[in-house]
């Protein structure tokens, strides 16, 4: 069981640990209420909070420093010397990666436009798909191929029949013989 003073010390250290984020507005609403409730009753923590606030204000309002007037000129002199070795060509993969990254960045920046275009695209694809006629449920073989195949089958069947009737006939020899007969007949 904690005594009252121990409890207060624990609470004070817990609140003091939150003061930095409290002044940066980074706490949740619940934490803010806790801090403010404590500051309303604890003078020491209130003093610490004011000190922290003044400290942050001081850091934020510290004068900005700038470079000397000849900074750019001196930098140019240095860069001029470096220039020949400074620009190696990027490999294709790195360039592609850069391109993808810049595309992602552009999509992040123009998020609303990208979402709108995607929705319109999905809608158009949906409309296109709905307009397509339903696919026929046959064997999957095109009709032209079946016809061609039957056309090819006919001479083969005829040959089989011929071969069955006269197994020793030679179609080429027969044609030559007919040709010779016709020649002599003339």
């Amino acid at each position: 069981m904690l005594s009252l003073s121990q409890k207060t010390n624990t609470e004070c250290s817990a609140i003091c640990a939150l003061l930095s984020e409290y002044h940066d507005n980074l706490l949740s609403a619940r934490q803010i209420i806790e801090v403010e409730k404590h500051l309303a009753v604890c003078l020491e923590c209130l003093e610490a909070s004011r000190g922290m606030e003044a400290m942050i204000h001081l850091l934020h309002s510290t004068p900005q420093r700038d470079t000397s007037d000849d900074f750019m000129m001196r930098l140019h002199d240095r860069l001029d010397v470096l220039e020949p070795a400074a620009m190696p060509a990027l490999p294709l993969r790195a360039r592609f990666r850069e391109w993808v990254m810049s595309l992602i960045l552009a999509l992040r920046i123009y998020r609303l436009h990208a979402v709108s275009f995607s929705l319109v695209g999905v809608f158009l694809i949906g409309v296109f798909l709905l307009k397509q006629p339903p696919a026929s449920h046959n064997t999957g073989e095109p009709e032209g191929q079946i016809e061609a195949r039957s056309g090819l089958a006919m001479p083969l069947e005829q040959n089989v029949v011929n071969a069955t009737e006269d197994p020793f006939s030679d179609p080429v020899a027969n044609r030559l013989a007919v040709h010779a007969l016709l020649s002599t007949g003339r």
Partner: protein
Amino acid sequence: MWAMENVMHTDTLLIQRAQANDRTAFNEIVLRYKSKVYNYISRMVRSSADAEDLTQETFVRAYLSIHSFQSRASLNTWLFRIATNLCIDFSRKTKAHIQASSLSQTCYEDDDTGSQRDILDVSYDPQRVLISKELGRELDTALSQLPEKLRTVILLYDMEGLSYEEISSIVNVPLGTVKSRIFNARAQLREALAPYLKGVY
């Protein structure tokens, strides 16, 4: 939010142009960021001459490795990462842990020569300007006495306005560590400047 994204978009375009060997684009990058980088480095190393050299070195390194820059990081973060690494190397090499007694060689002396300009916090009340300058000097001393790890995060967060996430990627530590370092840095500065701060609030 939109403004920040537009800045990032402009930066991306500038980088793409710089990667295509466009020197004008690189010059524009330097003009956009030189003050921020110099302001940060000058509070890390304190000597204005060293700060200017390191700022130059930051942009030379950026120029040399602009092709390796990937759009995943922001240009701001990338430049501050280069600057932070240079400051760490510098302090390792020269062991330049600035003491309060070395103020005679600091940027404040250069203030009188005109190489440094006060852009913010200029008030017409002479008394307030005096307090501000004295406080500024004390703040610089207190900052220089902070450990380097704490000084880096407090400068990046409170003076350069970077987010916890950006600082986490620059100093390569988890987000929780960044938060605790910022808290510790502020607490130490508050303690160091307590007598002066009482007059402020």
